[in-house]
């Protein structure tokens, strides 16, 4: 069992979110590309696929994917700012901003999809 006591700080949590979202997105990516590639063989076929994704379960999964993507994007920008621009200050604020951006994108998606 992993001891959480040495790992309970914001930038570690940001790493966990980045790794988990990255793992899920990387596993989803081939599936996403394959299914889309197969569905786009004609307008009718694509339309049929899109109507299938109208079910609530697919919409919930889409929302989760959008949040994962936004979280990975925002977290990745933070890491690259540290690596390439040397932004060493206010790392914890940047973690909070990344989390806020991810949730905001999810919310906007939900508002538009509804």
């Amino acid at each position, binding site marked *: 069992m992993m001891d959480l006591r*040495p790992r309970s*700080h914001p*930038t570690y949590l940001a790493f966990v979110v980045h790794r988990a979202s990255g793992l899920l997105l990387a596993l989803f990516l081939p599936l996403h590309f394959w299914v889309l590639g197969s569905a786009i063989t004609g307008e009718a076929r694509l339309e049929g696929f899109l109507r299938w994704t109208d079910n609530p379960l697919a919409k919930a999964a889409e929302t989760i994917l959008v949040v994962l993507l936004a979280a990975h994007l925002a977290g990745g920008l933070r890491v690259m700012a540290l*690596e390439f621009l*040397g932004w*060493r200050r206010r790392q914890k604020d940047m973690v909070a901003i990344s989390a806020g951006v991810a949730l905001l994108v999810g919310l906007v998606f939900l508002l538009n999809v509804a």
Partner: protein
Amino acid sequence: MAEPASLKVSVWRGGEDGAFQRYEVPARTNQTVLDVVTHIQRELDPSLAYRFACRVGMCGSCAMTVNGRARWTCRTHVKRVVDADGALELRPLANLPVIRDLAADLSPFFDKWQRARGTFLPKQSPDGAVPEDFAVVPPASKARREADAGIECIGCAVCYASCDVVAWNADYLGPAAMNRAWTLVNDVRDGARGERLDAVAGDAGCHSCHSTQSCTERCPKNLDPSSAIAGLKRVLFWDTLLGRR
């Protein structure tokens, strides 16, 4: 915070496969964790092995795992880490072989300083001779300020014990060795820049760092090894992309 009358201290005894032993230590004002360990060894159990020297946060030899976190014990006040129940858990530093009780073997940690080319090599006299003239290094220059930011490391291995990448990859150099390398990369008098950058590149070096920043979070000297490693990545990125290495 309420002050308990006595501390219930669980201390790691034995080697890797050892176990905790319980001790009751009277609580005192302004008591440090090192004071507690010393009390146990002097008054309760002289066979306890631990390591310390200066007691004032300079030598870097007394670091241990205190209630799950790596800390310098001589400058850690008990009241900062203990709740009203007075429970204190002491283990040797993580990610290092255990010699006995609270003493960890720091050889892998210092070996990696060598592997990361942590030794200054004067540019003017690679044969080790004393240079003829003083080097002029403006203290306000960018490189010097980068070097100064990491120069106060006391080699306590708190960062090394706090880093997950060290646990995941036995070859990984770790935060302190790369922080040292970064100070030398920024030292305009140093002549081993190329070899040093080679030594810290790749999966065993800076490119495996995931910026969890546990090193920066835990460093008792408030240094920022995470940013030093990011600096090494930055220099190596441009050097690799522009074919400078």
